[in-house]
């Protein structure tokens, strides 16, 4: 099932990203730039949640390995070089979950949110999808690309 193309969705990704960063990641003293320019810098990891139901799509947050360790180190309150691969997956997955839930709340409902999945591949994992909108958050000098994709098979709905 794909979304009705006549349905225009307006999602304020900037506002949602700003709330998530300011609550969970930005201690208040660090500079975080929202709606930062998209430099197209290479990303290593992508965490995503699928939306299934009245709206079909994915919310994806992608970043570099270093950036993912920064997120994990803040959420787990550990040094970046202490965090394990598991910690990175957990933290980045939770980031996608929180962003995804907030995005879902402004889309047609009812839809269900899948559990998050984190992997090392990029955009091509979501065939048949269309990018609805994206925003880039620049935090600790690293870009985080937050993308809402519409349509496509819910291929990661069973992800753990």
């Amino acid at each position, binding site marked *: 099932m794909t979304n009705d193309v006549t349905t225009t969705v*307006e*999602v*304020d990704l900037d*506002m*949602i990203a700003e*709330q998530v960063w*300011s*609550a969970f990641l930005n201690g*208040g003293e660090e500079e975080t730039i929202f709606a930062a320019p998209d430099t197209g810098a290479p990303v290593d990891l992508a965490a995503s949640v699928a939306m299934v139901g009245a709206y079909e799509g994915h919310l994806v947050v992608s970043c570099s390995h270093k950036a993912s360790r920064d997120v994990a180190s803040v959420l787990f309150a550990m040094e970046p070089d202490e965090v394990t691969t598991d910690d990175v997956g957990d933290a980045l997955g939770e980031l996608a979950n929180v962003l995804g839930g*907030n995005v879902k*709340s*402004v889309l047609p409902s009812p839809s269900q949110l899948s559990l998050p999945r984190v992997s090392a591949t990029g955009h091509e994992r979501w065939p048949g999808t269309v990018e609805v909108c994206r925003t880039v958050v620049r935090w600790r000098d690293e870009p985080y690309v937050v993308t809402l994709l519409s349509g496509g098979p819910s291929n990661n709905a069973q992800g753990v």
Partner: protein
Amino acid sequence: MEMTPALFGYVADLVFREAGMVLRPGKEYLVESRLKPVAKATGHDTVGSLANALRTGSAALRTQVVEALTINETSWFRDREPFSALTDVILPDVLSAHNRPVRIWSAACSSGQEPYSIAITMEKALPAGRGYQIMGSDLSEEMLRRSRAGRFNQLEINRGLPATDLVTYFQRAGAEWEAVPRIRQNLSFQRINLCTTLPPMSKFDVVFLRNVLIYFEPDTKRAVLERVRQVLNPGGWLLLGAAESTVGIDSVFERVAVGRTAIYRAPARDRQMVKEVTQC
């Protein structure tokens, strides 16, 4: 450019003149953190250079700076006791005094959590057939714009708004929550500077003036309380912040203890009623 003591002094003077708020030395960190976004938005590299530009800058820039420095973080039903006092002591008194809509002023209402909290309290506490009007005021146009919109983001909603109230009195509006028309129709907003003569307005039964006096010097406190007293109905009620009191500043208000807090009452025509209420 460095934030020198002279520049800090200039900013402190400006905030005192325009908003009556005292910024003592030692509050440099507050100035720095609050003005950083303003500096960025107005094309200044540092807060110091923004402060320097204020000397020759536009009135709009000065207003922006004053607004950024006088904003308070607010939660819903802040301190809770004043809201219990409103339902348990004040409302029964006001409802028996007249049949008009209950009029309440939320002074220095910031982004609106207080007037909307009062509205929710009234929705629950007022008997059928009785109406209410709430006026929110603030110095900041930006805060008034947000209050009028009645929209709150997720982080603001989390600050102590009970979930049952959220689903009853708010609806989703994009990534935010918006107060339902049923309560919004009872709210109005107006820019008021408490440090100058008040505009003409109908009298109020209750005034919320919380965590405002703490920023003022004694003379300003006295003048503000005097102005507030003049817009209160006889026997009208004043609610202050937990750390504030009229005692020693304005001897006309009567202090009434309610639970762990105190509320204040303007002289009533009938002194007998004051005694009855004191006994609660």
